[in-house]
């Protein structure tokens, strides 16, 4: 046992040296999380606000002004121009100056005053699906509220209220940070792991290794150790940056976070190693690893596209994507403060994938040449 431990540590130590010597792998491991976090945090925001809004106010009464100002005040819309008539909406959309047009017909204020139903229209540019959907959702409550007689005298925020628990500001950063952790670990772990064994085959050093007393399991475990460590550094990096830059909280137990992160890392490393062992060529291994680990995690984990909206067969497919369970765990721990009592199922699923992929890697690893 002690001998096996020595040999495993020799492999691990050598692997650490490989990682340190190859500046690219360090950049990728530590630079990529920062870049992705910036990109998703500042660049690609799923929050749709500051929608350019044109207002065609043909009524010009205090009531109509209250309506248009109400929309702008919520910061979802920015008033870019005033149109003389609702007929100009088409031109505003075509030119791209506005994504939404608020058309208030003459008589709007008068009807409101009389307690009659008053109709104002919000037109949105449907060619930009995401913006349109969100603009309609944001505005619906407001327009409806202000166009009913009762609301005319009340404040705009009255009416049926929706409150998002755990993320009251509906900040996409909250979802994004957990998503980025999942993506980063999936990508870097499977990528680096897929390179490592194929590289030994390509260089011929695998043959040399096989001539030593080092066993298959020792090679796999020895290679896992440094990459798991690297994965922890990445996770901590993203969590720290997430909490400083985007105020993402960590409400749950760090132990649950640690356990689930380890299991997910092992599952991704196992996938990469299995790809590396089966392919024996770095190029093929990398592509294979991306295809079976990163892509499904990006598409089917629920980070970018909600699983509930997928057709049944894709929902079924997402069951075998480890990222799905890790994302649930992360969101649960970070935002809801959930512990193992709630997340046990997801953590078990992660454990299953970790064991399965690593077992596959060791099983397919032939110690003899062919």
């Amino acid at each position, binding site marked *: 046992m002690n001998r096996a431990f020595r040999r495993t540590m020799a492999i691990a130590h050598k692997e650490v040296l490989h990682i340190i010597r190859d500046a690219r792998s360090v950049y990728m491991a530590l630079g990529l999380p920062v870049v992705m976090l910036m990109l998703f945090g500042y660049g690609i925001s799923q929050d749709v606000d500051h929608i350019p809004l044109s207002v065609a106010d043909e009524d010009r009464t205090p009531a109509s002004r209250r309506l248009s100002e109400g929309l702008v005040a919520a910061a979802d819309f920015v008033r870019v121009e005033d149109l003389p008539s609702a007929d100009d909406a088409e031109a505003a959309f075509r030119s791209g100056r506005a994504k939404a047009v608020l058309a208030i017909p003459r008589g709007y204020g008068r009807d409101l005053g009389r307690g009659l139903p008053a109709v104002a229209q919000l037109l949105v540019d449907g060619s930009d699906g995401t913006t349109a959907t969100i603009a309609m959702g944001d505005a619906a409550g407001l327009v409806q509220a202000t166009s009913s007689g009762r609301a005319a005298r009340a404040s705009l925020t009255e009416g049926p209220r929706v409150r998002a628990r755990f993320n009251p500001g509906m900040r996409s950063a909250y979802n994004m940070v957990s998503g980025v952790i999942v993506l980063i670990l999936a990508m870097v772990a499977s990528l680096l792991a897929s390179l490592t064994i194929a590289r030994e085959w390509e*260089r011929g050093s695998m043959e040399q290794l096989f001539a030593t007393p080092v066993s298959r399991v020792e090679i796999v475990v020895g290679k896992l150790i440094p990459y798991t460590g690297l994965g922890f550094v990445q996770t901590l990096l993203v969590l720290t940056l997430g909490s400083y830059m985007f105020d993402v909280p960590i409400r749950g137990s760090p132990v649950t976070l640690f356990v689930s992160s380890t299991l997910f890392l092992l599952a991704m490393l196992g996938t990469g190693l299995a790809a590396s062992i089966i392919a024996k060529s770095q190029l093929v291994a990398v592509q294979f690893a991306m295809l079976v680990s990163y892509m499904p995690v990006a598409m089917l984990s629920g980070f970018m596209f909600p699983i509930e909206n997928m057709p049944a067969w894709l929902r079924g497919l997402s069951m075998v994507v480890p990222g799905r369970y890790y994302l649930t765990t992360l969101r649960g721990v970070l935002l809801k403060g959930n512990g193992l009592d709630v997340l046990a199922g997801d953590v078990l699923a992660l454990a299953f994938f970790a064991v399965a992929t690593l077992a596959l890697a060791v099983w397919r690893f032939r110690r*003899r040449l062919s």
Partner: protein
Amino acid sequence: MSDEVSVRVKGLNKRFGAFVAVSDVSFEVKKGEIFGYLGANGAGKSTTIRMLCGLLSVTSGDVEVAGVDVVHRANAVRHAIGYMSQKFSLYLDLTVSENLEFFGGAYELFGRAFRKRRDAVMHSLALDKLSGELTGSLPAGLRQRLALACAILHEPHVVFLDEPTAGVDPGARRNFWRLIRRLADDGTTIFVTTHYMDEAEYCDRVGLMVAGRLAALDTPEALKRTLVPGRMYELLGADAAEVKKTAKDLALVGVEPFGATLHVRVAEGGPDAATLKRELSSRGVHVANVSDAEVTLEDVFLCVVGGAEKPNKVPEEAKAS
């Protein structure tokens, strides 16, 4: 060299599908012996060495290395052998001492025992001053020496060297063989493959591999004596085709181009150099000079393969690895 047997091979066969890479090979190597395995690329040298190291399964036959049945207990032999594969396979992004440390660790050498052994090996292979150098920055000759250092760190009984000097300059090759000899004198058994005929002269015994078969096996001297009997002459400024025409008359056994000259062998009791020159001239064959020549292993090799092709020029096989 003692009478103790380090490597015992009996009826060894290896087939890859329909291709027979090694066919019915048997031999024994004694402790402290340098055993050379000579043959063209693809003759089955690397395949044999890999089977002896337990890296490749055996189709049939028995292999015993350092008293271990390699066919059934490949893992049990690892501590007893050192292996230097044909492809240079150290880690180029590690320094000399890091490579040594890794291979030490792979053989469970660490701490004081490792350092003592490392220093001894580095000293004997004259690598002392290079410990901090990146392996990738070393010339081929030094890399080869480092690979040898990594292979003997754990003091194996038998060291298997697969084409250890391929791509190394002549000076470094000679140096390398001096180290090999010293290792053997200290009691380590050396099994080495090569396709350099001149290198085979350094070996205690040489096995000649031709198309998967062990065609001949003996000391270099005995091989020359038995396989290339008669006398060998070197002809300067003669045309091979013309000389060959006289072969029957003059009892010439072999006519082979050798560099810019011709190597002509006559049967036992044939003419001496002066007579041969006179006889050739009288038959209208121009020859500038005839002198006695040393029989080389290259002549032996050419005899054995029937003078078909020179070993270096045989094309890469249908891959025996």
